[in-house]
Structures are given as C-alpha cells and as structure tokens.
C-alpha cells in the first residue's frame, strides 16, 4: 500500500491538533493534582468518551477485527457480555465509593479501605501491567505500519511515542483525556465508512450470512456460526472460539470483564477526573452507549472480509510467510481496497489515533500511581506539591521509555490478545473479588484482602502452569487440556477470582475487623448513597436501564 501526499497531509494535520491541544492545556497545570488528576474538573461528555477511548487501543482495533474474521460475530461478546454489564455496575454501584472516598487512585482506595500492603501490591502490579499494555500496543502499531506501509518499525514506534510524550508532558491527564476524545471521534470517522462499504459490497448482512453459511471452518464447524453470537455456544466443539456458555458468561462476562472495568485505574481515572459525583457515575454509563456499537466498526468489517474473499472480486484474506491466514492485516487490506487516497489517510490516521489514545491512557495512569502511590509513599513523603508535579512530569518520560522497552519484549509473542488476556487473568481477575468484598462487606480486613490477592494470583499462575491449550502453558504438568487458549484464560480468571474470594473471606473472619468509623465513605452501609435528581439522562439508573434495553435488542438480533 502506498500513501499519497494528501494522506500525509491528513496525518500531519492530526499531529498538529493533538500537539496543539497539549500546548493550549499546558497553562492549566499549576499543581500535581492538575497534572495527574485533571483537578476533578472535566465535563461529563468528555470523560465518557475518554473512558471508552483509553481502552480502544491499536491492539484492540486490530485484534478485534482479526477476531471478527476468525470467530465471527461471537467476538462481539467482548463488548456486549465482556464490557457493558461491568461498565454499568461500576457506574451505578462502585463509583460512589471511588469518587466519594476522595481517593486519588484505585490503589489509594485500597489503602483507605484495607491497608498499606494491599495498596502496594496493587500499585506495583498495576504499574507493570500498564507498561506492558502500552508496549504491546506500540508493538502492534509498529509491526502493522511496517507490514502495510513499509515504514521502519523503530521509526514509527519512536515518532508516535514521542508525540504522546509531548502532549502528555505538556498538559498532563487533561491533555490525554481531551485528545482521547478527538482520537475516538477520528477512529469512528476513519473506520465507519469502511464497515459500510465492505458490508454493502458483500451484499449487506443478508449477503454475508448467505455466503458464510456455505463455508466450513476448521474442525467441521458450519460457517453459520460466523453470523450468530449465541446459537452455537452450547459446547466448545461447536464454535471456533472453543468456549462454552458457562466459560463465556462466567469467565469473560463476570470475572475478566468486572475485573477490568471495575478495578482498572486506566479507565477509572477518567471517571474520577469528572467534575461531580453525578458526572463520575454517569461517565461509564454514557460511555456504554458508544461502546455497544464499537463492534460494528471493528468486528463487522472483519466478518465482511471473509465473505468478500469468497466472492472472487479481487480481495483475499492476507497470508503470512507460511501461507497461514494473517487476520491482523484484515483491516488495513480492506482499507487499501475500499479507501481512495484521502480517505485512506483518515483511516490510517484513525489507526494511529487509537494507538495514541491507548498509550496515553496507560502513561497517565502509570504516572499517577507511580507518583502518589509509590513515590510519595516510599521515596519522599512530605515534599512540597511542586516537587510531586515535577516527579509526575519526569515519570511521563520514564513511562514512555519503559513502554518502548516493553514493545521489544512483546515482539516475542504472536497473538497479542492472548497475551493481554493472560496478563489480565493473573493480575486483574482476583482483584474484583477484593473490591467486591471491600465495598460491600464491612467485615473484610487488610490481611484478608492481601492474602486473597496473593492466593488469587498464585492460583491463576498455577492454573496456567498445569493446563495446556494450543500448546501453551503446562510448564509444571498436564492436568487438563482446554479446547482453546481463550477458554483457558477464562478459566484461569475464574480460578483466581474464586480462590481470592474464599481466602479473603476466611482470613477476614480470623483477623481483627476495622472499627466502623474508619470505614465511613468507603463501604456500603457506612456511606451516604447519592440521591439523583433531574431528567432521565441526568440520572444513572434510567441511563443504565436504557443501555440494558438496547443491549438486549442487539443480542437478540444477532443471536
């Protein structure tokens, strides 16, 4: 694929705007709170879109379109089951504690609710995870641009990292959040025409359905599975994901997704930057509306690509050097076939934008956790605020440099999504049990939470080391074989969550409870629950009901 001058112009305009936003917002920064927390002053529509955009990195876009081509519309479960319920839960039930506790970060909430060691454990594991996510995203982008445009891997990684560095360094979290909104809009502008054109060319959804049901996937599975999200989920053998209903709903829909959306500071930081409790609670709920429809611009083009490849009109699924399909290239090869010079620039800039929003999200979350939870806690405690502002700025640079290092580590792994799920499974899955008990059970103690978290992570690692899926895992033995790596990661998450829940419960009962007055504002029953006023769209509960209604329609439609 070759770009025309107009495409480069569009890319340059985009760079100018993101840097310009950082430049304008630099004047707003006078304290560490402005830099790391946006001074809790961002309007709700902006935090909502940033909440979604920070999660919509390049590996998400590329990985989801690849999964669309590989598994079909079942991939949408990563959104409909694997995100929306958790997003609603965090907005309605958990945000009153996060925002109301005045904690500056999620680890800091753990410190207030439990104790120092629980916070430190979470802060360190989170810091490592953000760096890895950011590095993986960078790797995904660099490799893609290298394959598609022949750009130098090091060059594209370093230039895009430098731009993220500059605008985050200048305007801190506010700059990252504002740019995430612009990036989200650009992703929609750059990807939705592709979905429309590709589906139209393949004869609409009906045409895709007809063409795909005629084919047979690996393992003798009927191609009808590609256009049905629920019908073929009875057993792992009847769908290409190798996942059954229970593993999907409990593993992905409950443990993994609640572990991510309800405890991950990367996304929650956006909500916690909102200008009021009501805005903080509505941030995830309003974000859920666009989130539900993201599958249509990232997954559906992947499905359409498979149908197009069967039509003999000059499109085929890209293959790697060994002749195996390389689904990660589906989205860019589609762009090359459907976008003329000009729109092609917008599409690729959208891809760059997704990478940058994902990376800036990681870097800003890393910044805050490092500065407040690790540096201020262990290295220098009572310095003037100016000092922490400078530390935050310096951490931006360190975070970006570490991410670049992680990008080179990521080059050793093939499937980006699997690796991400693996990391989330080890670190995030037990976490949700800790927060669930922390927010809704007064009796939970610091010793309980800490031992639960450690047990959960150990249980996750052990499950991975003792089971095998697609030739991975099984380092310590071979107790069970999963039909797919995805099923394995869902079950790892389930094991981690369950063991964390049990151990936290038992150890909490055996240790001394904290006095009730220490827990005011942190636990259900000891916290004033905000009363919501205003029209339906100004109140969390009716918003959530609306989301659920639309979600049901989507699931029934594509069942």
């Amino acid at each position: 694929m070759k770009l025309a001058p107009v495409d480069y112009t569009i890319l340059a305009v985009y760079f100018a705007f993101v840097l310009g936003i950082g430049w304008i917002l630099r004047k707003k920064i006078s304290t560490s709170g402005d830099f790391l927390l946006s001074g809790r002053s961002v309007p709700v529509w902006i935090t909502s879109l940033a909440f979604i955009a920070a999660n919509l990195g390049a590996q998400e876009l590329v990985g989801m379109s690849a999964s669309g081509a590989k598994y079909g519309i079942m991939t949408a479960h990563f959104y409909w089951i694997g995100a929306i319920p958790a997003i609603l839960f965090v907005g309605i039930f958990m945000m009153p504690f996060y925002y109301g506790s005045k904690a500056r970060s999620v680890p800091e909430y753990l410190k207030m609710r439990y104790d120092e060691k629980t916070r430190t454990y979470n802060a360190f594991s989170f810091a490592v995870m953000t760096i890895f996510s950011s590095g993986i995203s960078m790797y995904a982008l660099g490799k893609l641009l290298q394959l598609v445009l022949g750009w130098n891997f090091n060059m594209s990684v370093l230039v895009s990292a430098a731009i993220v560095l500059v605008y985050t360094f200048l305007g801190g979290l506010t700059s990252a959040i504002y740019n995430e909104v612009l990036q989200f809009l650009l992703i929609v502008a750059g990807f939705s025409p592709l979905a429309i054109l590709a589906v139209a060319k393949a004869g609409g959804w009906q045409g895709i359905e007809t063409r795909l049901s005629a084919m047979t996937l690996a393992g003798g599975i009927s191609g009808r599975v590609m256009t049905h999200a629920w019908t073929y989920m009875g057993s792992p053998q009847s769908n290409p994901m190798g996942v059954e209903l229970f593993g999907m709903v409990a593993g992905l829909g409950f443990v993994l997704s609640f572990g991510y959306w309800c405890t991950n500071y990367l996304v929650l930081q956006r909500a916690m930057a909102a200008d009021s409790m009501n805005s903080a609670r509505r941030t995830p709920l309003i974000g859920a509306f666009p989130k539900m429809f993201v599958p249509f611009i990232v997954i559906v083009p992947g499905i359409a690509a498979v149908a197009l490849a069967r039509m003999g009109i000059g499109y085929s699924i890209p293959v790697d050097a060994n002749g195996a399909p390389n689904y990660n290239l589906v989205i860019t090869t589609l762009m090359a076939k459907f976008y003329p010079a000009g729109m092609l620039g917008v599409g690729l800039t959208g891809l760059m934008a997704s990478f940058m929003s994902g990376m800036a999200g990681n870097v800003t979350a890393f910044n805050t956790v490092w500065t407040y939870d690790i540096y201020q806690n262990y290295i220098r405690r009572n310095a003037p605020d100016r000092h922490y502002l400078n530390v935050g700025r310096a951490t931006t640079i360190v975070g970006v440099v570490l991410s670049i290092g992680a990008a080179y580590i990521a080059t050793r792994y093939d499937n980006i999504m699997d690796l991400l799920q693996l990391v989330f499974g080890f670190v995030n899955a037990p976490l949700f049990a800790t927060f669930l008990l922390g927010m809704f059970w007064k009796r939970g103690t610091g010793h309980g939470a800490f031992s639960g978290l450690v047990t959960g992570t150990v249980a996750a690692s052990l499950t991975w080391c003792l089971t095998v899926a697609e030739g991975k895992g099984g380092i310590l033995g071979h107790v069970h074989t999963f039909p797919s790596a995805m099923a394995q990661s869902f079950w790892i998450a389930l094991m981690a969550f369950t063991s964390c829940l049990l151990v936290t419960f038992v150890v909490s009962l055996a240790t001394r409870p904290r006095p009730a007055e220490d827990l005011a504002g942190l636990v259900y029953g000891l916290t004033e629950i905000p009363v919501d006023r205003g029209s339906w769209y100004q109140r969390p509960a009716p918003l959530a009901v609306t989301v659920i209604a639309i979600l049901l329609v989507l699931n029934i439609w594509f069942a």
Partner: protein
Amino acid sequence: MLDLRVPSGWFFTVLGLILLGMGIFAPDTRAALTDANVNLYSGLSMLAFGLIMLLLAWRASRRAS
C-alpha cells in the same frame, strides 16, 4: 477552560474540506473495490460534523458571556 468542541470542530472542518476538495477536484481517485466517490461523501459528513461542533461551541460561549 478550553472548550473541546472548538479544536475538534476545526479538526473535522479541515479534514472535511481536504476530502471534499479531493472528491470534487479529483473525482477519479477511486479505490479498487467501490464505485462510490468515497472522499466526497465522507468529506461532506466530516465537514457537517465539524461545523455543528463549532456552532455548538459558539452558542455556548455566547450564552456564557
């Protein structure tokens, strides 16, 4: 505080104008698999979106002053 609708409005206006220009003055720039003048239509939608954002921001700033 910066009203984000202003920079995003300008961004999509500029993008829309570039694509619209391509769609009008280079209508033969087509992609392999579609007969539609993709630049023209997406340029028009982006321009419209950008102008709406600017209009909203302009109304908000007038109400504030």
